[in-house]
């Protein structure tokens, strides 16, 4: 037995060494790129944070409630959103919520900004989807802590590595759902558009995207929920936000801290879901 296992372990496949070499190489040779990305993302996060701060807690409550009414036309949903916001303010977690909300919003901007075009591209080219799909599987199954390590090496501590980890975790959802929506556009509709003289771009904008819109919105919703589920993990690399009290509570064995911020995260998730959910007409 041991002779056989010795045989197998004798020539270890250098997975770890390869990863380390790659990370070191990237750190040396692509440092300028990571710095640029880091600066851009930081600017984006700061901008969003500043906007939420200047609107203020009451302003945001009104804004979210109004947005909910505009999107859902339901008084009940508006009530849930307003009460949820008031609960967050009531618990005294508004400042932490701003940090988390900024992270989620920027994650949504990045995920949708990259995911929708990629979803369209993979729906157009079958070979591309065959190439991309295993990568998406990897992104969704690799434990986040694993890519948190190079994220910190490349981007240092702070909100950016938290954001990168969040995007890696959430991006596959928007790509997959956009791909599904575009490629399940009924042939009858795209053909009708072609028969009436649509250019490929017109077909995309006037037929395929509207047809895929419900799926794309589900993708957005998924992105928000997946981003929220990364809140605590992002805190580990210094992203701050609502995960911080949870971590502190864990370190000091303080259930009150954990549950307070835990319920605030749940409230935030509920608000965003109730606000943006796509319902069948």
């Amino acid at each position: 037995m041991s002779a056989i296992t010795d045989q197998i372990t004798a020539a270890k496949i250098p997975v770890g060494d390869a990863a380390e070499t790659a990370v070191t190489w990237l750190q040396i040779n692509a440092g300028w790129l990571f710095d640029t990305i880091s600066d851009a993302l930081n600017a984006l996060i700061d901008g969003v944070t500043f906007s939420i701060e200047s609107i203020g807690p009451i302003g945001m409550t009104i804004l979210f409630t109004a947005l909910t009414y505009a999107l859902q036309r339901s008084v009940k949903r508006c009530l849930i959103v307003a009460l949820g916001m008031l609960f967050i303010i009531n618990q005294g977690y508004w400042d932490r919520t701003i940090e988390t909300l900024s992270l989620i919003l920027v994650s949504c901007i990045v995920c949708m900004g990259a995911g929708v075009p990629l979803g369209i591209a993979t729906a157009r080219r079958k070979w591309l989807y065959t190439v991309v799909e295993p990568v998406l599987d990897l992104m969704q199954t690799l434990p986040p802590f694993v890519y948190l390590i190079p994220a910190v090496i490349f981007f240092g501590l702070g909100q950016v590595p938290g954001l990168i980890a969040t995007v890696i975790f959430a991006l596959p959802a928007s790509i997959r759902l956009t791909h599904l929506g575009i490629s399940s556009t009924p042939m009858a509709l795209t053909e009708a558009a072609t028969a009436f003289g649509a250019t490929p771009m017109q077909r995309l904008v006037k037929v395929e995207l509207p047809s895929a819109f419900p799926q794309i919105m589900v993708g957005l919703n998924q992105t928000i929920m997946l981003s929220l589920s990364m809140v605590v993990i992002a805190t580990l690399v210094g992203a701050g936000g609502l995960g911080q009290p949870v971590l502190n509570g864990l370190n000091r064995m303080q259930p009150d801290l954990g549950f307070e911020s835990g319920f605030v995260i749940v409230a935030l998730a509920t608000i965003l879901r109730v606000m943006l959910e796509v319902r069948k007409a």
Partner: protein
Amino acid sequence: MNTRPPPRTAVEFDRVSIVFGDRPDLALPLMDQGRTRSDIQSATAQILGVHDCTLSVAEGEILVLMGLSGSGKSTLLRGVNGLNPVVRGEVRVRDGDHMTSITNADPATLRRLRLSNIAMVFQQFGLLPWRSVRENVGLGLELAGQSPAQRTVAVDAQLALVNLSQWADRKVGELSGGMQQRVGLARAFVTNAPILLMDEPFSALDPLIRAHLQDELLELQKSLHRTIIFVSHDLDEAFKLGNRIALMDGGRIVQCGTAREIIANPVSDYVADFVAHMNPMAVLTARDVMQPGDDAAPQSVDAETPVLQIMEMIRDGATTLAVTDGGARIGTLTPAHVMGRLVNPRG
């Protein structure tokens, strides 16, 4: 008699072959040998769409492509606006005072012809469900770059024509099937395209609505004078709408002519079977059921006398009738022969 110039050609199918698959070059020689679709498919994995179809459609004519499912009628139709690419031969359509090849058109020309010369109506309607009726009807004009303000007059006029004005702002999903297809018709009419392709447009509708829309189409055609190529698997529909009918089988045109020509002289058993259930009384005349040759019969009828009238004369005791054409006697009618022709037109 007024002397109108003969109508110009609107659509020309010039030995058109369509093959589904990536190696049509393998299938074409077998198609030329007259092999069947299943033969060709098992030999080359290519699917015969249509083979060597030649047909010319005049301006203002309704031509019906007719056949069982799989006969290639829709495939041929979709060659006219390039939805199905033609692998050999050519489809040409009227483009002002000349004919332009669809088959060899560059993308810009193809798009121009689709925008302004060729409109299409689909069996499954092909309406955009998230849009209102008005937005659906305006699709062609919108794709041509017209602003909502520019297209509103034409769209509303078209909606009035198909009696959908009060539904203009509803979503198409709220409409019944018959109304949805009226939206489809309006969408096709509104671009003023002179050529209209109709791919079994009424097949998904129940029989009463279907008959109603057929009547509406004929009524509209009286004022619009479009060139219509209409695909149908329903013989009654074909004979009701078509000025001429092209019967297709296995991807090939087997006979093309007026209802009368087809009923009087079916070229094959397939065609004869197809038209066996049609009532020939309405379309045949003395010329179709006579025996050629001169005969000194006491009574005579004109060659264009409907068969129904001849049957009445036979019932009233006529035994032999001479058939005249412009004074000349060209044939004879006997009860037995008339019956024989009606029972079996190929006999």
